[in-house]
């Protein structure tokens, strides 16, 4: 089994912070069911994390704050999964709810250390 990182990207919208608990539940369910499904197949290596909208970018000598108005996509979050092949990892990525919102998932193998 190899590990793959799935990175979720979508257009920068600071919507989540403004959601009511009821709306948040509707947004959360597809994500919880998707990760639950991966875990039920014993293919979850790390739950990863959802990233806050707020942040900063540091380049050589320059620090820019969010909200990334000029950037088309930002990273929303990531998880790490276990899969035998890249194809299998891609199959699992196809279920990611970010795709329904017009976002993308980047699938990258994790280099084994040591």
């Amino acid at each position, binding site marked *: 089994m190899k590990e793959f990182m799935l990175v979720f990207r979508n257009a920068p919208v600071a919507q989540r912070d403004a959601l009511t608990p009821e709306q948040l539940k509707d947004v959360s*369910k597809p994500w*919880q*069911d998707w*990760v*639950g*499904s991966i*875990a*039920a*197949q*014993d293919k*979850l290596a790390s*739950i990863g994390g959802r990233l806050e909208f707020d942040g900063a970018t540091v380049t050589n000598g320059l620090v820019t704050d969010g909200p990334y108005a000029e950037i088309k996509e930002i990273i929303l979050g990531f998880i790490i999964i276990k899969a035998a092949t890249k194809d299998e990892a891609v199959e699992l990525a196809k279920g990611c709810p970010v795709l329904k919102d017009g976002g993308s998932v980047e699938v990258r193998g994790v280099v084994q250390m040591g």
Partner: protein
Amino acid sequence: MAAGNELIPHLFRTEYSKITAVLGRLFGFDHIEIAEDIASDTFLLAAETWGMKGVPDNPVAWLYTVAKNRAKDYLKHDAVFAGKVKLQLQQSATELQPIDIDLSEKNIVDSQLQMMFAICHPAISAEAQIGLSLRILCGFGIEEIADAFLSNRETINKRLFRAKEKLRSEKVKIAFPGKSEIDKRLETVLTTLYLLFNEGYYSISQNTALRKDLCLEAMRLAYLLTENANTNKPPVNALLALMCFHASRFEARIAVNGDLILYDDQDASLWDKELIVQGEYYLNLAAKGNVLSKYHLEAAIALQHTDKNDTPEKWERILQLYNKLLITEYSPIAALNRTYALAKADGKEAAIIEAEKLKLDSSHLYHSLLGYLYTDVDNKKAVAHLQMALKLAKSNTDKETIKKNLDKLLLGINQ
């Protein structure tokens, strides 16, 4: 006489383990057999004496006095033993002082807890931990342990002997683990108590009374952990809550003839309301702090099952709890239960797609689940899966249940 005959087995169950724990802690694992022998001798003497002279006014005090005196005699007369043990004892007691054998309630509980940590040690297998727990912490006889494991005396004796040898060679101390270690060691203890409970709850042994005893003992030991400030941690309360919820269904899940009654067919009026309330009490205590252990999640799921009303909202909550449980720790059972909850919350079609991904083809439970999911969706496939489940099932109870479902399904198709 009659009273004495019933009293001794009862006291044996409650007091044997206390005496063994206190003496065992005093002597260390090197001489744990001597502690066990003294406790056994004490009960032998009780049986003889009480039979002739009648039961004393305070039988427990009588047992403690005899055990104390026997232990002191042993220390006085057995030179080899005294040489070795006294050397260790003197670390805690000053020289020349008579050895105090403290059978106060507090010391009994402390000794049992320390013994629990020593026995539930990662150096020995889970099976050995459960066996030793039953023998030393719960006062079960070798015969009863063999019955619980569907094994024989010889195998159990060997297993316990090897486990004690291993604990000796690893120099495991009968003591509380240090502050930095306690959470990790507590994890092993909780795993063992949970397995002990499950051994009783799900055991294929036909001995219903014995199975219930295993569950009650696991609950008693978990309760002991909540009574001590060092070990009264949220996961312990969560585990105890989980056990209370499960145990509340004990009467409802076993038929008069010993057959298992599945959840859906249970008479909810037979559920023990008091245990459900107790479970809620411990689950509330478990909510302190920010630890969310798998026991929290399993207890929260069990709490949902204390309400038999079948609403989609309930099953949605159960589904999300199983999602969290699987993220915390994978287990095939949790994966199957999650899929069942998904069927109840989102419908069978969605659940079939998920079930086909689980790849648990060698499990009869997996095929039983698919049999249930395909019923009324694709009955041909449902029959094939139930037949496969029947082929893979090992216990008679499982086979009976699957056969019943298969017959029901075939009857429906032929009509």
